[in-house]
């Protein structure tokens, strides 16, 4: 049995999967303590907890800690050398710049100074910071400085993390922010894990525990303790993976629309794989290297406020409260749907009286105006989706081949989930001009997504045969290589690294390893070849577990 739980801002959803089908679902209100919500929703499922083999959690723990600033800010030790002044990226007084510089090929040209580092460490200890993040420029090409600083200070602090372990991608400012958030959230995550483990134990659940990440993949609890920052923004990821799980046609490029009360989140699935933010996600206005879905939000939801501006109908972008037909203050699209008979839960008389004045001003009938309101709502969604697709299709490319053979993204169907999805379906089909699917279990799609998401990992490998070195930063690998190294060798080694890493976490079976990027360059000095520069990014792909079936 698989247990998937998504703790959202308003609701906590849970599903229990057994034998490839949904056995039980539950939805409760998220009240204060996350662990309490988790306990309550599991109780609501009413299942035999002893049979659970795998529990996956998607929570807003890290996201909330960062946005509400309830984390204990970590101290940071940063080495950079010349370039853009790193102090531009310092967030608190506990960010310290130390000597040390590494160039773009991973060669050190200014060493770190142990005395200086010990001095900084003492200062941070005196300040009482719970953790220290360590970041150096170009650590993704050579982690030696981060590792050197780490070995000097690790005994002094409870939580320490190094930039190169969080991502093998280049971008020093993002690496700084990512490491800062990661280290700062580690104590929050640690406390949460203790509580959760205890709560699960009390319920009789002795299962593998995993967490959902921002890229729609999962990773085990042990990894979460070291890299909690990867769980930020897992909510939208849960919806997307839920949408994917419920899709009967995963091969088609699909627009996934998660329609809420205030906003609609839009993402795209290509061949069952969600489009990711190419450089990493942003949180609280700061950019990171965290791998996450590319999701855009539009102020268009079931409860978007309907108004007249300059004699023209406007829907959203704000929400003033529930629809009038449920006792709210101002008319919303749900009222329009109630008038049209699509929303039986709402009081149709109240809905009509809310819409009537608008109809009066526009000089049309109440049913007509109601249709216009809903159409305006979905048009806002469609325009935002179009903007999103155009943006993706304008990404720069760096080879002539790609310039001449552009691979444009063009969705062929819409998958709508969330409260008003079913009622909006015909309007969505109309506005988008394509099939719109609203799957069953749409109400707990998030929890389903969490339950069924595959484990994902990404590694970067950069090999330079002139310097005779290969670095895989995420795994902390920095080793010598010979001049006869080929890309095939590297790929084989990379697959081995991924397989072994996941096996250590108890994950085996069909891993679906795919190549994200591969490039080979001749290194030429003088007029002859001096070696080759290889870049490789491998991942286990986001997706849905094999044994799932949609019919349930």
């Amino acid at each position, binding site marked *: 049995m698989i247990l998937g739980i998504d703790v959202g801002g308003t609701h906590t959803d849970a599903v229990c999967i057994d034998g490839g089908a949904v056995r039980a679902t539950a939805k409760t209100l998220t009240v204060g303590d996350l662990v309490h919500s988790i306990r309550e929703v599991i109780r609501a499922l009413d299942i035999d907890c002893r049979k659970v083999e795998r529990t996956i959690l998607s929570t807003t723990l890290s996201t909330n800690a960062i946005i509400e600033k309830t984390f204990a800010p970590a101290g940071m030790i940063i080495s950079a*050398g*010349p*370039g*853009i*002044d790193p102090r*531009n*990226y310092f967030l608190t007084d506990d960010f310290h710049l130390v000597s040390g*510089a590494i*160039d*773009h*090929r991973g060669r050190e*040209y200014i060493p770190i100074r142990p005395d200086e580092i010990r001095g900084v460490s003492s200062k941070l200890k005196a300040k009482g910071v719970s953790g220290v993040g360590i970041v150096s*420029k*170009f650590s*993704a*090409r050579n982690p030696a400085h981060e590792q050197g600083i780490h070995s000097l200070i690790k005994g002094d602090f409870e939580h320490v993390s190094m930039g190169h372990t969080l991502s093998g991608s*280049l*971008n*020093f*400012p*993002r690496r700084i922010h990512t490491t800062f958030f990661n280290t700062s959230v580690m104590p929050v995550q640690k406390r949460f894990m203790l509580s959760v483990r205890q709560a699960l134990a009390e319920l009789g659940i002795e299962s593998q525990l995993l967490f959902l990440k921002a890229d729609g993949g999962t990773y085990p609890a042990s990894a979460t303790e070291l890299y909690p920052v990867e769980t930020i923004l897992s909510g939208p990821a849960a919806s997307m993976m839920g949408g994917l799980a419920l899709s009967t046609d995963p091969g088609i490029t699909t627009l996934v629309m998660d329609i809420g009360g205030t906003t609609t989140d839009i993402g795209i699935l290509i061949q069952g794989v969600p489009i990711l933010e190419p*450089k990493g996600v942003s949180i609280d206005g700061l*950019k990171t290297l965290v791998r996450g879905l590319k999701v855009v939000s539009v102020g268009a939801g079931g409860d978007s406020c309907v108004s007249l501006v300059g004699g023209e109908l406007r829907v959203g972008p704000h929400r003033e409260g529930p629809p009038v037909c449920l006792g709210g203050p101002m008319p919303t699209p749900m009222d329009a749907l109630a008038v049209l008979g699509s929303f039986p839960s709402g009081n149709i008389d109240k809905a009509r009286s809310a819409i009537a004045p608008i109809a009066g001003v526009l000089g049309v009938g109440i049913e007509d105006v109601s249709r216009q309101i809903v159409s305006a709502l979905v048009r806002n969604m469609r325009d935002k989706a179009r903007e999103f697709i155009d943006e993706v299709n*304008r*990404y*720069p*490319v*760096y*080879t*002539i*081949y790609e*310039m*001449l053979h552009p691979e444009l993204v063009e969705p062929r169907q819409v998958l709508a989930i969330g409260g008003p999805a079913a009622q909006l379906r015909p309007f969505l089909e109309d506005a988008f001009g394509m099939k719109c699917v609203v799957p069953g279990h749409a109400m707990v799609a998030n929890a389903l997504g969490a339950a069924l998401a595959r484990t994902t990992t990404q590694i970067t490998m950069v090999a330079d045969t002139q310097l005779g070195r290969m670095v895989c930063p995420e795994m902390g690998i920095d080793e010598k290589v010979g001049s006869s190294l080929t890309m095939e060798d590297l790929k084989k080694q990379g697959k081995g690294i991924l397989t072994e890493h996941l096996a250590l976490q108890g994950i085996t079976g069909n891993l679906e390893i795919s190549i994200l990027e591969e*490039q080979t*360059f*001749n*290194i*030429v000095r003088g*007029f*002859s*070849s001096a070696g080759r*520069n290889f870049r490789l990014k491998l991942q286990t792909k986001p997706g849905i577990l094999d044994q799932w079936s949609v019919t349930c």
Partner: protein
Amino acid sequence: MLTAKRKTGLIFFPAYDWEISPTHPERQERLLYTQDQVLEEGVLDIEGIKEFKAGLATDKDICRPHFCVPDVDSRITPSHNVSAGGCIEAARLVLEGTVERAFALVRPPGHHAMRVVQGARGFCNINIEAVMIEWVRKHYPRIKKIAVVDTDCHHGDGTQDIYWHDPNVLYISLHQDGRTLYPGSGFPEEFGGPNARGMTLNVPLPPRTSDAGILHVIENFVLPVIDDFKPDLIINSAGQDNHYSDPITNMSFTAGGYARLNELLSPHIAVLEGGYSIEAALPYVNTGIILALAGVDYSYIREPDLNPDRIREDPRIIDYIKNLCDKLLDMWNARGTIDVPEPGLQQRRRNIFYDTDGITENQNEVIRVCTLCPGAFRIDSNADTGYRILGVHIPWGACSRCREQGLSWFEDADADRYYAVYLQDMDNDEYCVKVT
């Protein structure tokens, strides 16, 4: 967080799947470390700096400044469409107002490609700035006067050639003295054609000129001239082979110097030309240029091995440069009186060598001296590949006499003598070839 003072667009096209040959300086690796540096510095995350996709220049775009012999497709590969297309995109972004400044960090380069293209020379097949400029003049007629400041270490003889007769395009080139470096030209007496005197300005610099020398030229010659000319658009051909670490040249410019140059010049569009110190120079120079264009502090950018004492110029070089600038400024101020042409037709004969392809060409050019317009001209070009062609150019804003003259040159061309006869009619945006 860091914010740009001026919205700046970067078109980065490193052509990772193209090279002249595997060990040639123009190869896939050339911009790799530049990309690494720009990414690691987080330049593209700065508020106001954004990367855009390159575009594809069409054959017609390429026919505006060039007579390609025998035709466009024979002289280029798709890499050139993209490189020129990247420049056009940069111009479009600026002229549409999407950004205030743009940098086309593209390869392959173009400033050695002349109006007649019988082959490739100096790693260039087509002149990417000229393709961009003619695209601008076609699509944005409000842009009448353009200044091109070419700071590549080599004299941009191609760009000079294309705009030799054009009084509306001011071409200024700073370069290592042609007596010491390819292509061997670019002297002060090369001062512009009969209808465009003073619109070509060459500043040949001694080897080992460094920041002080080059910036002196910018501050004391280039900026006053531009101030006087008042162009609608300023373009910097930003070749980076002036750097002290460049393997095929002898100058001593630094990344900080390049950034300062761009800060002073503030070109609307910068275009990469040469520059083959791909590890020790390009990553730092390009980061500096982008920051300078955007108005972001670049003062902490520095090459790892920078040793200012080792590269500072001999004071005699500075004196030489000061004298040179004074003389050039005098020439600029007196341009209406230097070498005033007699009315009628003027002829020029030249030999051009295409080093990349090993081709020699003889050119016989005739221009109609004209006070009303830039003047129609014809070029009889004979290459040792066997292609002899006639190219006729009717300029932007051609007066009726020059138009008549151009058309009659085209109609009356001797079919037996030429493989093909070409016509460039700028105002009507028509480019025809008669293969005879």
